[in-house]
């Protein structure tokens, strides 16, 4: 009776001998045959990661990326059967991957790429029209009472590095030579129809939206944002809610 646990252990560690109960019809060493499975697993997963993290790949080159991805899949094989989500732990792995220490922004760029994937596949939900949102905004009583429900595809990212500029440069939107990676940036990611959007937002807007996400009322979130930074552009942050399909509901808190 084969032990599938031992089979898996040997699959993921090429230094281990192949399982002892394998045979070949011609009596040959079964190791090259077992290696087909070892190779299938690594190559298919590394190929998937290369496709899902193209900017991360470009920042370090294909050879380095694939070696890093191979280390990731062998040390942390997927805990999901959905290939789209195998990269969920990848950014954290990159952050602790010693050979990437000289590229300190790499992990957060990978995080941005993974966030875009999550936004792409998030559940569908109807969003409020800007008219409906404006009606609530125009009523001071409502502002003090309502909390905002966000579309499942809405994500907020903050980094000490210029992750948005680095990503945008790889889309051809700006010259990478002009990017200083050590400037903090904040990004709003969401799905608009079928397309994922990534917008750079201010630190103030990031704080405002984060507070709304955590259940603050509009008044509370706005008040806290202005307390943090008197120059916080509240109308600009509100405009994000009006301009993009981010909000699925505005309900008074119980």
């Amino acid at each position, binding site marked *: 009776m084969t032990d599938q646990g031992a089979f898996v252990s040997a699959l993921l560690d090429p230094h281990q001998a192949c399982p002892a109960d394998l045979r070949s019809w011609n009596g040959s060493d079964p190791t090259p045959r077992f290696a087909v499975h070892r190779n299938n697993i690594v190559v298919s997963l590394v190929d998937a990661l290369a496709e899902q993290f193209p900017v991360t790949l470009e920042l370090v080159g294909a050879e380095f990326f694939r070696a890093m991805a191979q280390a990731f899949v062998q040390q942390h094989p*997927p805990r999901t059967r959905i290939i789209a989500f195998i990269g969920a732990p990848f950014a954290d792995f990159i952050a602790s991957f010693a050979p990437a220490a000289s590229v300190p922004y790499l992990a957060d760029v990978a995080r941005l790429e993974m966030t875009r994937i999550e936004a792409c596949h998030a559940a569908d939900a109807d969003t409020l029209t800007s008219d409906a949102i404006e009606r609530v905004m125009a009523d001071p009583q409502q502002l003090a009472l309502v909390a905002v429900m966000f579309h499942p595809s809405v994500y907020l990212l903050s980094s000490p590095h210029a992750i948005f500029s680095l990503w945008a440069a790889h889309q051809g939107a700006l010259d990478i030579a002009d990017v200083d990676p050590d400037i903090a940036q904040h990004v709003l990611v969401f799905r608009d129809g079928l397309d994922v959007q990534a917008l750079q937002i201010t630190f103030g807007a990031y704080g405002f939206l984060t507070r709304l996400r955590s259940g603050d009322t509009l008044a509370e979130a706005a008040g806290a944002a202005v307390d943090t930074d008197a120059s916080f552009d509240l109308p600009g942050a509100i405009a994000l809610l009006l301009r993009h399909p981010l909000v699925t509901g505005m309900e008074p808190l119980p």
Partner: protein
Amino acid sequence: MHGSDASTAAERPQASGDAGMRRLPLRCGVGLKASHLQQVLDERPDAGFFEVHAENFMVPGGPLHHWLGRVREHYPLSLHGVALSIGADADLDLEHLERLALLLDRYQPASFSEHLAWSTHGGTYLNDLLPLPYDRPCLQRVCDHVDQVQTRLRRRMLLENPATYVRFASSTMDEAAFIHEVVRRTGCGLLLDVNNVYVSSINHGYDARAALQGLPLDAVGEIHLAGFASQTDGAGAPLLIDNHGAPIAPAVWDLYRFALASTGPVATLLERDNDVPPLALLLAEARQADRLLHDCAKALRASHPDDARVASA
């Protein structure tokens, strides 16, 4: 659908815009690739049906579901699972089974199939179809799992014969006998992967036609055709890799013709997952299979005019 109508009156789409059938048409379909989606919807090519990997659509929402829904309006769909891990030495993952049930409910595919293989252990997913020994305990486990799947999904599933590279010392029966027993005990159907029969026959030094004839051919609900890559084993003997990355080899077309002579026309899928060419080339290859299906039906009608297998071909 365009082209020759391969369906009986009872199986024609119920309404315009609903290509729903409980059986795949006796034609060749192709795997639906993301890179071909827009073209499929713009051009509406004459493919018999489309097949997708179930797991790719186990995401909560977004464009994948939008596009698959649009394709489903115009074509029958075959849902092919890769990660249910029916051969695992563990219980089936109930969450995964529920996700499958949800997908089948949403898309009403004409066919659902999975593999005689395992791919998970202790919550880890290996993204490959791993082999199992063909012995009594494995047979019982596989039958129990197939029973569980068919009960939960409330439909018959097709089980695909695998491409294998290793054998196990503990096996007590050959693969065809094992599959025969699973089909007999559970009532599931066979997804006959002709390329896998060929690849495994080369990899284990046995006769492909004899192996094919040992399978439960009267239970075939779909045929898969795919390409392989060539390597060698530790003794320099040929080792074929089922990588779905090449056109169908001549020896596999031969084996397909041989299979059809026993099964009659069967819904056939052309699998191409790697090095994917333009859609037009895949469809041209599919037309080759359509011609063989047509010839098979014609030959059957000539020799067995009352055979039910050709009434609808």
